[in-house]
């Protein structure tokens, strides 16, 4: 057996890793760096081309590379440059978030949430004791009451309104978070109920229902097209309004012209697309719950509700939590359904994002419709930072990667 010299061994290892390293550099690192660089420039449709004599542009912009340099268009437009000040795209987006009024509002909103944090800590502490002095439900109830009182005292909604005035970024992100917060639990609920029904031994034709209920998941591959069907349902002269008129003799609202109803329609359509994912995940997890537990519970006289809360949910938790995290991420990236149904509208004015202009729709509009590359890339960087932190946090909670070392 020959003993490798250190250098030769390192070289061999490097050669084996090289294809992967190159692929990562080309497909992950380079686009990220170009994106970050662009976010500090004035690049937009009026200043589309690079000034290749600027060192970083010369290296990073493909138009300056020897392959493209000869064929790259040279227009009458000025080349893009580093923005003045460099953080301009970021300050445009985050606007007055760091000005005193916004910071005070943010502080007030955080103070409103303090009772929840305290309740969580108190409950953890009580859980260690054999006989907790107070049931956890009571602690949460007190915390929620405190939140409501604090909310009134500190005027939570006024603070929120102040924050929403600070620029596009917060408006778009908060709206998206709200969308996720409504859509994910509802989808989970629908998926759970359907899975429990389908898991029942007494249901005739289970296989048929399993297939039929799974159809929307297949349809979500062509989500944009099917979303147009949903749009058709909810048009002023659409199916829903025609039915309302024919059956109840009631003239329905113009659903998609109202910010609230338009959001509801998108949530509905998206729940329809995504409940099968939960349904199937939960159905799979339910198969692994031993039947003896339910029999024992029956003997002990537990009600179906108690069985659900005490046996089913805790045992399927390991399957549900990653599904919840994944669905939250896809919901945050919502694009097709929202764009096809409302295209980000209804519009609220020229200086504001539309009522359903979620993160991805906003980014799409900035790039493809307004061609404001500088701002769009700055937006992407901010979203990246936010999602990165959120993902780290969710990994800690779910421990999805535990064991994968």
């Amino acid at each position: 057996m020959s003993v490798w010299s250190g250098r030769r061994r390192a070289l061999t290892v490097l050669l084996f890793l090289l294809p992967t390293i190159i692929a990562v550099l080309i497909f992950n690192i380079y686009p990220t760096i170009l994106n970050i660089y662009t976010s500090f420039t004035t690049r937009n449709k009026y200043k589309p081309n690079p000034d290749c004599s600027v060192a970083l542009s010369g290296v990073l912009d493909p138009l300056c590379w020897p392959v493209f340099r000869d064929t790259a268009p040279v227009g009458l437009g000025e080349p893009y440059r580093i923005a003045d000040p460099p953080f301009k795209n970021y300050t445009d987006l985050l606007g007055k978030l760091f000005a005193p009024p916004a910071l005070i509002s943010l502080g007030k909103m955080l103070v409103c949430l303090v009772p929840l944090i305290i309740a969580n800590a108190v409950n953890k502490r009580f859980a260690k004791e054999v006989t907790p002095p107070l049931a956890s439900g009571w602690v949460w109830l007190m915390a929620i009451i405190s939140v409501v009182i604090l909310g009134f005292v500190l005027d939570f909604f006024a603070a929120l309104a102040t924050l929403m005035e600070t620029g596009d970024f917060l408006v778009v992100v908060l709206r998206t978070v709200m969308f996720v917060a409504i859509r994910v639990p509802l989808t989970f609920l629908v998926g759970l109920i359907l899975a429990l029904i389908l898991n029942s031994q007494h249901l005739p034709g289970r296989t048929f229902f399993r297939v039929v209920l799974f159809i929307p998941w297949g349809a979500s591959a062509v989500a944009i097209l099917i979303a147009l069907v949903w749009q058709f349902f909810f048009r002023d002269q659409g199916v829903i309004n025609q039915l309302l008129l024919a059956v109840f003799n009631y003239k329905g609202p113009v659903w998609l012209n109202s910010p609230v109803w338009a959001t509801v329609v998108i949530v509905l359509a998206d729940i329809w697309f995504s409940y099968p994912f939960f349904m199937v995940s939960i159905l799979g997890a339910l198969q692994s719950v031993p039947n003896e537990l339910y029999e024992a519970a029956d003997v002990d006289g537990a009600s179906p509700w108690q069985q659900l809360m005490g046996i089913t949910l805790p045992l399927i938790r390991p399957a549900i939590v990653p599904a919840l995290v994944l669905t939250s991420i896809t919901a945050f990236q919502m694009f097709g359904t929202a764009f096809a149904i409302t295209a980000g509208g209804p519009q609220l004015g020229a200086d504001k994002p539309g009522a359903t202009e979620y993160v991805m729709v906003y980014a799409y509009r900035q790039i493809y419709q307004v061609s404001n590359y500088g701002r769009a890339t700055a937006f992407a960087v901010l979203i990246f930072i936010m999602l990165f932190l959120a993902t780290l946090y969710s990994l800690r909670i779910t421990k999805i990667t535990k064991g994968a070392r």
Partner: protein
Amino acid sequence: MSKKLFPVISILLIVAFALAACTPKPTEVKNVTITIWHQWDGKYLEAIQQAFADYTAAHPNVTIDLSKPEDVANALNVAIPAGEGPDIIGWANDKIGEQALKGNIVALNDYGITQDFLTSTYEPAGVNGVVWSGKIWALPESQEGIALIYNKAIVTDEYLPTDPMNFDDLYAKAEKFQEDTGNVLVCNQAFGGSDAYHMSPIFFGFGVPSYIDETGKANLNTPEAIAAAEWLLKFKDVSLAENSYDICFAALKEGKVGMWWTGPWAVAGIEESGIDYGILPFGRPFVGIKTLMMTKNAVDRGNQDVVIDIMKYFTGAEVQKKLSLINKTIPAATEALLDPEVQALPAVAGFGAALNLGVPMSPSPYSSAQWDPVGKATQAIWQGAATPADAMAAAQTAAEEAVAQMK
């Protein structure tokens, strides 16, 4: 064979080769494929395809490839630097400035197109529409603007506004029409949509000179613009709540609306559906020029002469007359427009009158800053999210910000 013959044969061969090299080669015709990216659709496209087929029949060495990419602007950004772009782009003239700034298209002055040729061949609106910054960037194909196309069977003379600038009259007529028939008089895809183009007859009709002028000055919060926005809000009461191209077309066919505020592109479909229609100019619409532009790639490939020839052929009087008779377009070529057969077309007469009232669309790059603010503002007004004055003030700010990005 005797060895003596070798030198003789060798010399003969050499002479033969040398002579063969000297004889003039028969002029070899280079085969070229010209790619055209266009915006033509449906019925429109059939006649246009025929026109190009006629060209390739007369020029067997030329192949013309017509394609219609989904998102031309972004497709160009990728294709042109890679040398994979089209040779010709068929596009509206408001794209000229932006494309020239980017360098995707080339000025035609360097390739034998002169101002004299332009003015002697095309209508003044067409000429103005393709000249920017002292250079010629495209050849004008046809002119277009929108007017009221009405169904003669249900809109009788009493409901037709007599003065194309009297918006109060149009409102009164629409109100009366609704009272009498229960239907809506006017459908316009800009009502409730984000569509500054189809809003143009209203804003310009109220006296707004242009959304954004050649110097980059926005005119969106002027008293005229606010008056137009207020009229729009009022007109909502006598309109459909939702309007789009398809909704308007279907409603016109079903007799649920009397008029459709649209352009020549809709005429072929309306004729096919058998509606007896009339065209009434109203307001001051944008006059857009459909053009053919030559790309940088065409020059890189050495196709410029063929490209210019095709552009001249297609925008010329002969082809445009044929297209006008079939597609009811309004030619930019003067000779085609003045042709008695073309003049006799009701669509040309009707839209021609609308174009005469209209405001030419500017080829300046500032043009591209107008669509988003005006579209969003009018949608917000229609949906009640903002008052006309607030919405127009916000649109002014947004337009100024967009123009500032350019400077």
